[in-house]
């Protein structure tokens, strides 16, 4: 694997781990509180829908001319990545609540317990599990498609996503609890940096400009974006105690 392909695999793996942890929390909450069979039906239906989306859009995207693909997908990836990075910086600065899987798990479990229970197939559990996996999975599908299509390595991106999901599911089965110890907020910060860096790189190339040093420019872009993000965390006035990300930057 070359540098951009390693970057692709790492970015997709981190992003997918974060999203899979969030989906796992929702499925665990409704599964343990109400019905495992209905929860797993919801997960299965969402997985089929996501696989269909990737299978349909992947070949369509890779059929586009490379410059059009790069400017289109690079631009979308940059807009998407800036959104992740902005939220990550705000979390690290204490201006946005951090993801707390244990808290989300308890809230979902309370809501599941309070909802009326039907005999047989549990529609509530199916719907919550389906929506949770589908909504978290759509972000995964977007990242897999944009990263994979840009380098014509959709299979590599899908494999990295699959490995992340597998590890999270195994972790959830072993722990039988939400994976609250996964450093989710720090991982989101890293993913925001990677998405923004790759989006900027591909968008510029797609618009017809060449980077000095070609692909090696990524080795400068990624650290610079990371440094800028850490500088912004430090520059924003804090409203609570320093976060994981801020400590890493220290």
């Amino acid at each position, binding site marked *: 694997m070359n540098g951009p392909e390693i970057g692709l695999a790492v970015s997709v793996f981190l992003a997918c781990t974060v999203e899979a942890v969030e989906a796992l929390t929702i499925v665990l909450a409704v599964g343990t509180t109400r019905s495992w069979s209905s929860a797993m039906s919801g997960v299965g239906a969402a997985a089929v829908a996501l696989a269909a989306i990737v299978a349909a859009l992947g070949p369509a995207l890779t059929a586009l001319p490379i410059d059009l693909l790069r*400017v289109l997908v*690079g*631009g*979308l990836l*940059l*807009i*998407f990545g*800036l*959104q992740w*990075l*902005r*939220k990550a*910086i*705000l*979390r690290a*600065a*204490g*201006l*946005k*609540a*951090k*993801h*707390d899987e244990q808290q*989300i798990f308890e809230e979902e479990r309370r809501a599941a317990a309070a909802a009326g229970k039907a005999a047989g197939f549990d529609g509530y559990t199916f719907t919550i599990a389906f929506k949770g996996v589908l909504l978290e999975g*759509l*972000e995964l599908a*977007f990242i897999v498609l944009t990263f994979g299509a840009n380098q014509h390595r959709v299979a590599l991106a899908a494999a990295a996503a699959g490995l992340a999901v597998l590890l999270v599911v195994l972790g959830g089965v072993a722990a039988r609890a939400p994976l609250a110890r996964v450093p989710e907020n720090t991982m989101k910060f890293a993913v925001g940096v990677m998405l*923004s860096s790759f989006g*900027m790189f591909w*968008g*510029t190339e*797609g*618009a*017809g*400009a*060449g*980077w*000095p040093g070609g692909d090696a*420019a990524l080795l400068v*872009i990624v650290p*610079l*974006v990371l440094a*800028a*993000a850490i500088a*912004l965390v430090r520059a*924003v*006035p804090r*409203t*609570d105690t320093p976060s994981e990300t801020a400590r890493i930057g220290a």
Partner: protein
Amino acid sequence: MRHLEAFLAGAWELVVGDDWRSAVGVVLALALTAVLATTSIAAWWVMPVAVALLLCISIRRAARDGSHAPEPPS
């Protein structure tokens, strides 16, 4: 029609989120890059400068608007 609207709203929320100004800035920066790329002037620096500015403006706006009440997670 309602399904199409829901789909477009979902796609907008997924990609752009709550800061449309940054999205517009990215599109304008890409357009400027494309224009400069047709000239003899180097164009690769446009996106890094644009991203730095957009991120600073976006964070500054969010810090100003939400400094008293942390936003919920999303």
